[in-house]
């Protein structure tokens, strides 16, 4: 697949519903260690709600799909991840507005807009032990590889997201609930970084079909 069409976007979001359903306990366990044991439930609840909207989105432009996903996440997830992933899709929607397919460059622009929205809402940066430790390196890797096309760029992005997420383990959290732990937050993966890596991984799976 060289372009991501609206069918694929819907397939991606549907896959995310499944992925977060499966990873619910895993993400919650991570959150129990340095947070409040709800990240898995939050993501599962949000993307299950998104999944119920997808049939009605068949044939809509990708901007509309992203916006619907954004509003659904905003009104069902709550917590920190709700506004963050909500803002991600909301800003990604502005780039995808009116489009029925996204080129590799479009996907890069959407990721850029979405991830910047996460930065501006959460005011975190790389090294703060948040989802941005996965998302920002992934964005950079994607942009570097975008000339090779959608799937190769996504492959690089996923690798970078996974490495970035793994890199959160030794970090002391500076943002989010884990920051209350200070030094005791070190030694644990950040749940949001893991859920972000899953998000991109599912996109790669979808685009590879």
């Amino acid at each position, binding site marked *: 697949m060289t372009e991501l069409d609206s069918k694929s976007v819907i397939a991606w979001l549907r896959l995310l519903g499944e992925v977060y359903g499966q990873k619910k306990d895993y993400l919650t366990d991570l959150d*129990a260690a340095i947070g*409040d*044991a*709800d990240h898995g*439930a*939050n993501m599962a609840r949000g993307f299950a709600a998104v999944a119920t909207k997808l049939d009605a989105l068949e044939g809509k432009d990708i901007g509309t799909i992203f916006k619907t996903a954004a509003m659904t996440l*905003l009104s069902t997830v709550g917590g920190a991840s709700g506004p963050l992933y909500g803002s991600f899709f909301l800003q990604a929607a502005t780039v995808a507005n009116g489009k029925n397919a996204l080129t590799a460059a479009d996907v890069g622009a959407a990721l850029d807009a979405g991830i910047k929205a996460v930065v501006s809402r959460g005011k975190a940066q790389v090294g703060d032990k948040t989802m941005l430790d996965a998302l920002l390196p992934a964005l950079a890797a994607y942009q570097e590889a975008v000339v090779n096309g959608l799937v190769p760029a996504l492959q690089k992005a996923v690798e970078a997201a996974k490495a970035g997420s793994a890199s959160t383990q030794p970090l002391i959290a*500076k943002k989010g609930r884990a920051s*209350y732990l200070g030094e*005791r937050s070190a030694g644990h993966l950040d749940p949001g970084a893991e859920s972000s890596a899953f998000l991109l991984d599912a996109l790669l799976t979808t685009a590879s079909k």
Partner: protein
Amino acid sequence: MKKLINSPENLVVEALHGMEAAHGDLVKAHFEPNYLVRADGPVKNKVALLSGGGSGHEPMHGGFVGKGMLDAACPGAVFTSPTPDQMYEAGKAANGGKGVLLIVKNYTGDVMNFELASDLLKADGIDVESVIIDDDVAVKDSTWTAGRRGVGTTVIAEKICGGAAEDGLSLKDVANLCRKVNAQGRSMGLALTSCTVPHVGKPTFELPEGEIEMGVGIHGEPGRTRMKLKSADELTAMLMEPIISDIPYKSGDEVLLFVNGLGGTPLLELYVIYRKAAEIAQAHGLKVVRNLVGSYITSLEMAGTSITMLKLDHDMKKYWDAPVKTPALRWGL
């Protein structure tokens, strides 16, 4: 996990139904999105107070909706911030024309969701002020982190600002009073046992016999340190020390002392703690002129306690004493 519930999914909605059934004279429940408002609201020409947060901290916040306290409360899923659409609808329903004060506990999720709600309400032309409560001295304060958590001072701020709003103060003035309460309030808590989040089904953390979590958060977030269980007097001193060394005060100042149960600790024990906490405050030259003892900001069934101290001024005392009629806090009415 042993809980008196039907299912984790329906817990919050069923409890809202129960609250409305029990306190229909005081509160009205709305569903999809979920929120509680004063049964006699919106109150014309009164600043509306709106708060909210994850469920599992009852009676906070829903139990504080009513005359003299909150106009609306938004319950999220257990331990999860509510969403902007809830706050937006609740804010519109509660607004009596004099604007809405959002009282937000300082958790990243709550702050971001309330920010979005504030934007939505402002877009409708409603005056909005937000005050962030961050009183938990267990957490190191720093501009580089998420800062301190919002805990017990929230309850006190909702009562005092509720009194001020009934008294006719403007949105700006109520908000400034709320900021002052936050600036003069400090809290710290400890846990003897974990709580179990219903949809998780197992305890958030393991706390072996003989150990406690000092500085625990109300969502079961780990605190300053894991340590050996000590006597009530020793533990009370360990909670009071960081509060007193952080709170701005001078000898002779008047304070409100709030000894809170986290859910699973009997009232009998809270009074043992209150006794020692009041003694310690007095030994520092503080005059304990107001108090609250009970489980008002809880962490499901967690055993433990938190202490909140607020340095009072004339207005705070006046508005603390003002009549209040809510499901969980009531006097003078």
